[in-house]
Each structure stands twice: as structure tokens, then as C-alpha cells.
């Protein structure tokens, strides 16, 4: 009996170890694939020679900080950074306020015409005005060339709104009832009772919105045409795309220039690293928020 049990246990242990080993090695391979693009950019950004000059390398060829010096010296990078930070901070703050104040009433069963309002919101998930009508709207509201053209059109995302609404619906009604007995009104309940409970979902939505704002460039390309108004992603695009058009669109010999690969890599990293750093800090709320907020009708 005992011998049989021992063998059983040993087999089980072997199975567990084998599983763990395979699991870890798979994860390592996956992580490498995810990390490699960054690693590649990282090494090229410190390489003096043009990175097109040879394939795979984990170490910078001809180490130099020159690429970063040149990125820092570009006046467009400074203004681009400022514009991106401005739109991200402003956009995230306003989006959170608008999304939560809209989601709260929609999460209440007693809210009049609740289904109608929800349907209106969901409608925008499937149909949009299209590029030109949206541009006309933004232009006629005189938002063109201001930061508001980057913040207001995407202020409330229907998808985020529904996730927040669903999250709020999972909060027990008794929590609010007890506050009401203590004499709190709706505003106090929202800010003192509901919001603290909603921390995970706030962190999640904030991260999503912030990342979206950080990465967005197309709206800026359309709405903001004044000098110094470009966001970092557009500046980066300009630097990276330079020289990739061919003779048909090239006009003269003097425009016959291209950005060295190392400089491209440095620019990309400068544009990407800050938002990447935001992830670890919200990680702990993030998983919880995404799980709880899943769609439950």
C-alpha cells in the first residue's frame, strides 16, 4: 500500500515538474519574442553605424550616444512631448470624469428610460459619422488647432462606459442604502462610496485611455495644423518615414535624404518608453478591473 502510494506521489511530482519546466520554457520563448523588438531598437539606438548594415546583434555596433543627443536637440521633440503629455493628462482626466458620471446613473435600475440611454450609447459603437462629417463638426465648433480637438471627440468611449456600468452594477445596493440612511445624497454617495469601491476599474480605464491618447496621432494630423502643435507620435512618424518614399514622390535631389536607422530607433524608444513605464504601477488593479468588468448584459 505505502509503496504504491509513494510511487504515485513520485509520478505526480515528476508530472508537476515536467509541466512547470515546459511551461517556463514556453513562457521564456514567448517573452523573448515580445522583448526582441525592443531589444533590437535598444541596440540600434546606441549603434553608430547604420543598423541596416547587418542583421542580428545583441550589442550595439560602435557604441554611441549620438542618436539620443540628436533626438534631444530636435525642437519638434520637445514640443511634441509637451503636446502629448498635455493631451494625455487632460484627456484621461476628463474622460474619467465623463465616463464615470455617465456610467453611474446608467447602472441604476431606477433610472428613467435607462435602456433607451444605454442603446444610444451602444449605437455609437457600431455607427460613426465618418471622417469628413466629424472634421466639419470639429471645425465648426472652432476646436481646430486646439487641444480640445484631440480630447473632446473621443471623450467617452462606449466600450469603456459599458465596462464601468457593469462594474458598478456588481456593487451591492445595501452599501448605498446604508449611506442614504446616514443622510448622504447622490453626489456624496458617488464620490464617497462608489468611487473608492471602483478603484480597480478606474485604474484600468485610466490606463486604457492614457495609452490611447499617448499613441494617437491621426486625429492630430487632421485637426491640428499649426506649427508646434504636433504630438510626439506624429513627430516620430515624420522622422521614421523620412526617405521611405520613392522617386515618384521625391521631387528634387536635395530632398534626397533619409533618417539613419539608429536615429529612428532612438526616436521610437523616446516616444514609447514613458507610457511603457506606466504599466507596472497599475498592474495590480488592472487584472482585477478587467476580470470584473466583463460584459454581463
Amino acid at each position, binding site marked *: 500500500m505505502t509503496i504504491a502510494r509513494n510511487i504515485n506521489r513520485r509520478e505526480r511530482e515528476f508530472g508537476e515538474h515536467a509541466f512547470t519546466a515546459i511551461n517556463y520554457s514556453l513562457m521564456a520563448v514567448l517573452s523573448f519574442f515580445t522583448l526582441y523588438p525592443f531589444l533590437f531598437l535598444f541596440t540600434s539606438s546606441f549603434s553608430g553605424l*547604420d543598423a*541596416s548594415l547587418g542583421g542580428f546583434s545583441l550589442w550595439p555596433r560602435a557604441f554611441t550616444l549620438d542618436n539620443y543627443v540628436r533626438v534631444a536637440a530636435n525642437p519638434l521633440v520637445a514640443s511634441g512631448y509637451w503636446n502629448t503629455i498635455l493631451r494625455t493628462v487632460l484627456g484621461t482626466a476628463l474622460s474619467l470624469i465623463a465616463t464615470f458620471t455617465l456610467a453611474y446613473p446608467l447602472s441604476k435600475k431606477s433610472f428613467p428610460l435607462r435602456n433607451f440611454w444605454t442603446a444610444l450609447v451602444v449605437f455609437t459603437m457600431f455607427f460613426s459619422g465618418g471622417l469628413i462629417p466629424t472634421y466639419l463638426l470639429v471645425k465648426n465648433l*472652432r476646436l481646430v488647432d486646439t487641444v480640445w480637438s484631440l480630447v473632446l471627440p473621443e471623450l467617452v468611449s462606449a466600450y469603456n462606459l459599458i465596462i464601468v456600468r457593469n462594474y458598478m452594477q456588481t456593487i451591492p445596493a445595501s452599501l448605498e442604502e446604508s449611506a442614504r440612511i446616514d443622510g448622504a445624497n447622490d453626489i456624496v454617495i458617488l464620490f464617497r462610496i462608489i468611487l473608492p469601491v471602483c478603484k480597480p476599474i478606474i485604474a484600468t480605464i485610466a490606463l486604457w485611455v492614457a495609452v490611447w491618447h499617448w499613441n494617437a496621432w491621426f486625429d492630430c494630423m487632421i485637426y491640428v*495644423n499649426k506649427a508646434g502643435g504636433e504630438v510626439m507620435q506624429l513627430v516620430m512618424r515624420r522622422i521614421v518615414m523620412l*526617405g521611405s518614399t520613392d*522617386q515618384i514622390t521625391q521631387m*528634387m535631389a536635395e530632398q534626397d*535624404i*533619409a533618417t539613419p536607422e539608429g536615429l529612428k530607433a532612438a526616436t521610437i524608444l523616446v516616444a514609447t518608453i514613458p507610457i511603457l513605464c506606466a504599466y507596472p504601477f497599475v498592474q495590480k488593479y488592472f487584472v482585477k478591473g478587467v476580470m470584473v468588468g466583463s460584459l454581463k448584459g
Partner: protein
Amino acid sequence: MNGSKRRMILAAAALAAIASGAWASGGQDGAATGAETKRPTITVANYQMEPTPEDAELLKLYGDKLSADYKVININHDKYHELLNVKLASGEIPDLIYLRQADTLGTYVKQGVVAKLTEDMIKQNAPDLYKMLSSYAPGFLEMGKINGVQYGIPAVSPTNIFHIPLVYRADWMRKVGVTKVPETLAEFESLMYKFAKEDPDGNGKNDTYGLSRDGFFAVFGAFGVVPFHEKTDYWMKQGDKVINHTASSNARQALELIAKWYKDGVIDPEFVTGENQGGYWAISHALINGRIGFTSRANYYHWAMPGVYQDVDAAGNRAPNQPGAVAKELIALNPKAELALGQALKGPSGVAGIMEFNRLMNFYVVGKLAEQDPAKLAKVLQTLNLSANPDYLTRTSVKYGQEGKYWKLVDPASETMNMIPPYDKDQSYWSRIGGVLAMSGTPFPPKAAREQWAYSLKYDQGGVKSVIQVGLPTAMKYKAELMKIRDEAYISIITGAKPVSYFDEFLQKYMAAGGAEAEKEATEFIKAQM
């Protein structure tokens, strides 16, 4: 005005104050001015490398010269036509519009956003421009006509009078014992076989090829055609018809030869994906990485090795030239590599030829809104005229700013300019100072040392050109589909997946898919011009 509205919408937002402070500084006060004087405000959309501020110095210079106010509509070059279309659809029609693709002129005319011009208007208001085009690019003004009406003002490349280069690895040639750079197709063929078979890189492995996709230009050129260009259709007269090079019997003969070379292992099997692997467009990665020994990619100046001609340096002294953009990459990768630039190859007919890029680069048009205001329209044309000033100093300073401040004329005889630091490293500064108002593509004969070198290579001779350089409506309509059919057929024939006789079947398919219709249109277009 803006502020109060913002405050209304977002009184609660604490950040509003910071934001409006930072963004209102640009302010749009353009609407208020203009009424007080007769100075028209001219809006311009042109190629630019970065946005132009409203107070850029050249905007003032132009304004003083022509008593007008200028406003640059900054449009990101990367998605130029998409963004221009959004502006046009919303009723913002710039007064001077650059059409990045010459093909699109017809479309914009049909949309009714382009003002009608007459030859007299151009002669009167832009005499220098008119003279420049008629003396250095005769016939190009005609290309801006649609149904007999002048709409477009052509931008013509000054350097595309030279055909594309024939670039050989000279060190490989020496290795396989060939001293003479090929002049005929037969000599070329024998060299390509040697490049593929005789281990020219000396590594003991059979890992080299003669040529790849861009090298085909030289072979097709020897037969007098450009049938396999990635994006552009080339047209030729044949009898009383105008036909696409793609559908010519010359192309078929060349294909037969290339297919034979492919079978013998002379062609890089990766030709299907092209020689460039991204990044700077002019680089042939296949050549600089030592896979192939010949290419015709890009222009002569990209491949100039150091010291092939004498340039003028910043101090005005003669000095060996700096390497061209691609030559520089090649040297960095392989310091022992050497290049030889050859002549266009003589084909079976005894005539040498190779593709020449279209000289027509793009069009400038006047916006429809200026049509009602003849005084303004005249000023738009006068604006362009400044870029065509016969004096090099004048026409260069309306684009690159004041001489002595941004650049220096180091050799007046060869019209050589050098950028003054830091502008030599800041290639987009001209956009920032308002050089956007200038027209690019003024076909004055190039005089610089680099171009003298191209003349010495005889690259101004033997270029195969297209008799039609604009996109005609029917041709444009079927272009994507026809190019797909062509690529499929040409690649199958080259790789041997289909025999050469498949060309007849391909022709039928091609003609039925719109090729015949496009041919008819092209024939009528040329007839109408004569």
C-alpha cells in the same frame, strides 16, 4: 472668443486654464485682417517637411514683394492627398495647391476645385515661369491641359534628363577577369553568368547572382521598353497606335531572355520581393549585401563613390566628392567594394536604351475660389513666378532663405551652394522659414559638378521615356487590376512556372480587363495633341 466657449463647455475642468493658455498662443487672428486693405490673403498647400509657423520669415518676404498676405495650410506630407481631400470637402480650398501625384489632376478638375487658367494669364503673370518651361521643358505645359483647358502648372525634374544608372561591382568584375564594362546585351549576359557562377566574392560558396528586379530595367531597356515598373505605366507609339510597354512584343523578347537566365541560376530568386528591404528607398540591399553584382536602382548620384568627380567644398576649393547616399552604405558595409557605372546596353536592334524616370513630377493648381478674383489669381501665379527667376541667387533664396544666413554660394559658375551650419544638418529648416511658398521642380539645366559627372557618363543619352506622363482617366481606373495581371504573368514567365508562349494568353486577359480601353484612350490622347 475661443476661450469663453471652452469655459462654457468645461467649466469644471481644473486643467482647462493651463491648456488654453498653452494652446491659444497660436491664435487665429487671420479672420479679422484682410478687410482693411486690398491685400489678398493667399492660402498655400505645398510639400513640406514640417509645419510652417504663421510668422515665418519668407512669408513676410513674399508678402512684401507681391503685397499679399500668405497663410500656409500645413498638411502632413505622409497622407497628403487624404488630408487635402478632407479640407476640400469641408470647403477649405487653398489658393495654391500642390498635387503630389500628377495622376490626380483629372480627378480634382472633375471635382470642381481647380481654377481655369489660360496661356496668356501665365505669360502675363508668370513670364519667367513660362519662359523656363518653354525653353527647358517644351511640351510639359500642355500636359496640364484637360479637354483643351489649362489647369495644371507642371513641376518638371531638372535631373531626370538623366536615365537610371547601370551599377556594376567593379571588384567582382576584376575577380572574374572582365575588364570592360558591358556595352551590349551580349557582353552583359556573359558577365552576369560569371557573377553567378564564378564565385566573384571569393568565399567558396555558390551564393551570388547576377541581377535582381531592378536589374531587369537594363535588360528591358536594351529592347527599348519599360514594361515592369512597380507603379508607372510607360507608353510608346507603334504604327498609328499608342501602346503600353507592358503589352509590347519587345517586352516578350526580353522576358524570354530573363526566363532563360532564371533557369540557369543567374537571377536572384528573391527578385519577387524586390531589392529594397525597407528604410531608405534608394538602397538595393541585395547589392550592398553582396547577393547580386548589378543593379539599376535609384539615380546616378546615389551611387557616386568618393572621388569620381571634383566638387566644390565649403571654402570654395575643389575637392573630391563625398560618396552618394547608397555608396556610403556600401562602403561602410564593405570598404573593399568598388563600383563601375556603365552605359545603357545595346540590344538586338543595335540601339542602346534604359528607363528614364518621368520628368513630370507633379502639378501646381490654383484653387477654384481664386477664379472669381482675377487680382488674387494673378498674385498666385506671380508667387510661382518667383521660383522660376532666371537668376540662381534669387530663385534659391525664395526657397532656402537669405544667402549668407542659411546658405552660401560657393561657386557661382557651377551654381553650387553649401548650407551654413547648423542648417546643413537640419534638412527641414526651409519648411520652418516659409520656403513652402516656393515651387519645386524647376527644370533649369543642372550645372553642378555632380551633374557634369552624369553628362560625362552620357546618362543624358539613351533614356527610354513614356510618350504620356500623366494618368489618363481610363488608365487610372484599371491601373491596379492591370498591374496585378501583369505582375502575375511576368513573374510566372520569369520563374518558369509558365512558358513564354503564355504571353499571348496574358495579352488577351490584359486587353479584356481594360488594357484595350486604356490603349484606345491613349491613342486618342496623343492624336488630339498633334
